[in-house]
């Protein structure tokens, strides 16, 4: 059986990153507007309307597509910014809208039927019945699968649905069902769903305490590091906590996802597209990761063995995992 080439969906936090991704061989680039309508609402990131228009033109010249993520949940009493984001992205020629909220999906279906709708991972549709619901109700054409499924389960899901699936292949790893996690707002008042941020930098502090470096988020200590120990960013679910009197990385080690060696299995599981996380990362990261995945995807399509990706140094925390794709993770 021959497999269709996997589509490479790459992150762009800035116009420079978009150009880097396109130049490195991205099939699609995903991005968001510079506000709380997307789940990477970080200072200094994202696109104005004009930058989106330029980005689409740049991508199209290279045969690539731009997907616009509007994947936070609109504010009660003030959904205007989200509706305008959808209207503007559609009229500027986005190849697809990546949405999570039911109200926004209905708006896009009714007002921009010609623009493809992708279901964001923030909707965490993890089973065929949920996916079929989004497909039949809102005409969703592709679902970004939550990072909770094994490859075997992904294959089973694909066998039961008629829409495309996109899976995370590299980058930050949510260990909770995406879009259903309030850990960040519990500690800081700001959440992925409402504010487009998780463990926001504005509430991070590092303190020296008795010769150790303490990382804090809001009013809570997320980790402590001895001298010489690499101190990571205090993402809440990658913190060290005490249960039953024992300290450990209970939720997840400070690792990131790297499934590049699983591409053949993911292709056989019927996956259409691979997503690289990291809109908050710089141009160098984008170039390096996208190039490595381009080589791997092309090798796979030609039936050749995968080249050595050499991505060890760019992973967050410097350590990698295949996450939930393998059952032992649970």
């Amino acid at each position, binding site marked *: 059986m021959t497999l269709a080439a996997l589509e490479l969906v790459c992150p762009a936090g800035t116009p420079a990153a978009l150009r880097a991704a396109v130049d490195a061989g991205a099939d699609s680039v995903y991005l968001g507007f510079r506000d709380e309508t997307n789940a990477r609402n970080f200072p200094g990131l994202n696109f104005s309307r004009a930058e989106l228009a330029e980005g689409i033109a740049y991508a199209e010249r290279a045969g690539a597509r731009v997907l616009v993520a509007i994947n936070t949940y609109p504010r*009660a009493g003030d959904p205007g910014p989200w509706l305008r984001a959808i209207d503007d992205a559609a009229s500027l020629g986005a190849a697809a809208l990546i949405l999570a909220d039911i*109200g926004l999906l209905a708006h896009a279906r009714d007002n921009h039927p010609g623009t493809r709708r992708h279901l964001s991972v923030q909707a965490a549709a993890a089973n065929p019945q949920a996916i079929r619901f989004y497909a039949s109700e809102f005409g969703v054409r592709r679902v970004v699968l939550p990072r909770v499924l094994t490859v075997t389960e992904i294959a089973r899901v694909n066998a039961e649905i008629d829409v495309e699936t996109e899976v995370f292949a590299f980058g930050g790893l949510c260990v909770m069902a995406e879009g259903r996690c309030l850990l960040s707002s519990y500690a800081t008042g700001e959440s992925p769903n409402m504010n487009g941020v998780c463990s926001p930098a504005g509430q991070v502090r590092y303190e020296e305490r008795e010769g150790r470096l303490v990382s804090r988020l809001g009013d809570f200590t997320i980790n402590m590091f001895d001298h010489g120990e690499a101190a990571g960013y205090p993402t809440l679910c990658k913190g060290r906590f005490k249960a039953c009197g024992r300290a450990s990385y209970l939720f*997840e080690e400070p690792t990131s996802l790297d499934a590049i060696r699983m591409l053949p299995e993911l292709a056989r599981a019927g996956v259409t597209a691979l997503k690289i996380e990291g809109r908050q990362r710089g141009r160098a990261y984008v170039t390096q990761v996208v190039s490595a995945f381009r080589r791997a995807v092309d090798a796979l399509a030609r039936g050749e063995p995968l080249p050595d990706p050499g991505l060890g140094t760019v992973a967050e925390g410097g350590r990698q995992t295949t996450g939930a794709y393998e059952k032992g993770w649970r």
Partner: protein
Amino acid sequence: MKDRAKLTLGPLLFNWPAQSVRDFYARVADEAPIDSVHLGEIVCPKRTPFLADVLADAAERLARAGKEVVWSTQALLADARDVRAARTLVQQTDGLVEANDVTAMAMLAGRPHVVGPTVNVYSELTLAWMARNGAVRVCLPPELPAQAIAALAERVPGIELELLAYGRMPLALSVRCYHARAHGLHKDGCQFVCADDSDGMPLETLDGEPFLAVNGIQTLSHAVVDLIPAVDTLLGAGVRRFRLSPHRVDMPAVATTWRDLLDGRIEAGDGRDRVARLTTFADVADGYVHGRAGATRIARADGLAQ
């Protein structure tokens, strides 16, 4: 009070021994001034076989006591077996079912149902869609501030808004079982260690501060939400039901405190003190409804900040 606000007892989140569950619902039926009681295992399907008979008996007894019984679906339907279980529950229940994820909500289309707090509804667009889909009552996500609740109630009248008002707040779900992981076990061989913690397993920061609580695949707040000090604001915002989440405390007394408060028999300050005394295992918090971090307590000890 113009329109009597109601009380709901949420689904039991924890793995209690069958006999404790039986005794708990017997007391609720006999003593708790609760209007509706949710039954069903929403966290881990491995617990269900031990509870089926107990919950069926509880449903009968609660109904005889005049309580509305609502069956709740599992919050994370991760595999085909989970989906089948939800479908069976939906098909076999004549009364109200609470959908705790989008899959179950889709199964309940066209039929009156409740939407639970782990389904995302943040704006009037989605709330209106849910009403058209058949939702008659929605228990809102715990992180919504009172201002947002007021906007929802104003723009989508006719749907009953409910809010978690007592209990540890549900914060996250995973396919990974953190209870098993904390004991060095794998999910498939978990030995039901979650049964050791009747209110969840406390999780502390490295400097010993209480932070979260683990309940199998679910992560809860360490603090217990207590919305008594904000009750007037919330009634004004359009909350018509307050949800009390079961804990190993005197739940009928918690319910009585709320009923007394809603009927004007006690002041909010007295209610707050009673709930604090009854809640022996954790501090209380109310930050979310004030638009702040969920872990914070805004209502001060010396008075009721609003």
